[in-house]
């Protein structure tokens, strides 16, 4: 029991010490994962809305595939992106491997299906409610999708948060495509993996606590933003 107490005080000490290296690692984690989630929303929300609205042959299969991809193993995505971005791969000329951009690409691939699948689910329900109204207004498919996303923005923020949770917590993909290079591609999860392998279990656990607090902070911020927006909208 005393060990968990010392881990907690270690985590607190790390945060309070204002250690520049720790803060740059935290900043990179947030930058990579938030950018990936933003990109994944740009792709995943319209994709999810499209699947919720439009009927076409093979739609059921597409939805099943999307749902299955929610469980993409990070290490496999990492390997796939590595093979693409490797100097010997098709996109090797850009020299993106071992950069934060490569990590953003990997996490975007990882969380897009999750966001799209959750968006499809909640927008399909919403579409059921509004279908007749949209029809009577004669809205085009594009306008319907845009209207649905706008109307469902609060519940979609939950999909975005789920994507963020998956991105910020994964280590398998970023350690392969980022290489865990100090000051360049080292993020919270790869640092935790590294410290564990050095046998610094207490430090690794303390970093884990900070990571959880970070995720909590982002979730609280989005929740607060949602609430304020809702209040303004209905005021």
């Amino acid at each position, binding site marked *: 029991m005393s060990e968990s107490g010392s881990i907690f005080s270690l985590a607190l000490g790390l945060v309070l010490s204002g250690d520049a290296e720790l803060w740059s690692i935290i900043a990179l984690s947030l930058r990579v994962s938030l950018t990936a989630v933003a*990109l994944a929303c740009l792709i995943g929300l319209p994709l999810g809305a499209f699947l919720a609205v439009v009927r076409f042959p093979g739609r059921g299969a597409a939805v099943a595939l999307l749902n299955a991809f929610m469980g993409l193993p990070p290490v496999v995505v990492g390997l796939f992106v590595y093979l693409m971005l490797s100097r*010997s791969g098709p996109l090797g000329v850009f020299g993106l491997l071992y950069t934060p951009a490569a990590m953003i690409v990997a996490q975007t691939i990882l969380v897009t299906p999750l966001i799209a699948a959750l968006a499809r689910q909640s927008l399909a329900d919403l579409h059921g409610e509004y279908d007749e109204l949209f029809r009577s207004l004669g809205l085009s498919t594009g306008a319907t999708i845009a209207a649905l996303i706008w109307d469902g923005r609060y519940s979609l923020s939950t999909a975005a948060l789920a994507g963020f949770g998956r991105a910020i917590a994964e280590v398998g993909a970023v350690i392969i495509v980022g290489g865990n290079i100090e000051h360049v591609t080292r993020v919270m999860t790869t640092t935790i993996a590294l410290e564990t392998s050095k046998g610094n279990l207490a430090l690794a656990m303390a970093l884990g606590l900070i990571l959880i607090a970070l995720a909590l902070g982002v979730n609280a911020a989005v929740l607060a933003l949602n609430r304020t927006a809702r209040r303004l909208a209905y005021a």
Partner: protein
Amino acid sequence: MRKLAKFTIVAALAAGLTSAAAHAEDPFIIVQSTTSTENSGLFKHILPIFKAKTGIDVRVVAVGTGQAIKNAENGDGDVLLVHAKKSEEEFVAKGGGVKRFDVMYNDFVIVGPKSDPAKVARSKDAAASLKAIADAKAPFASRGDDSGTHKAELKLWKDAGVDVKAAGGDWYRSTGSGMGATLNTASGMGAYALTDRATWISFKNKGDLTIAVEGDPKLFNQYGVILVNPEKHKHVKVKEGQQFIDWLLGAEGQNAIRSFTIDGQQLFFPNAGQENMKKAG
């Protein structure tokens, strides 16, 4: 609200991508290396000295030797610094690298629980000790990841005349992970393990483990450095990469390696340009 959201997204994307690009402008090289050099803190000690002199940022990707060589073969690095001489020579022979140079050595040790179920403590004969561990069916944690340490371990088992494949899952436990992770496993289940001394000394979760076998010349661990072949991969930064290799092999780099200590113990022994390898220890 919509504008704000749009603006936030665009700003975040711009920040994410541009700062990713900004990093690429500093002169840097990528070194594919092993976990032992990184985890022990050697790079943290010597790289700032090199950077201060040349302004070149050395970005280390620390993976097992097998993966490091594979990455270098794909051209995903400018310099390779690993410890599996035979594989390194094959890598150069296949045209992956320009030339291999000895840089430094350290040695392997066999660590095990203090209770020493195989009765090998203070032995200087690595092969005989492994044989004793096998005979006692005492748990042994192996890297099992095609790393330099794993290759060295397999060679020792061969010398000992023990077929570890047959014992897999029984007393022989292949972790398929890095040195530190394997030591964590060994520490957790009271197993023997082969580790490089550098990782061992800096490892913080020793638990009940202690050094059982050391000082056998067979436990010698030589590191080599190779420039990735620019004829095969045009983007290789020949000038900066060669500069790093020349520095490592020269007096300054060798002194930097020598001056790296933990708790007063020197962990790596520079031996660039020495034809006859010294014994370990």
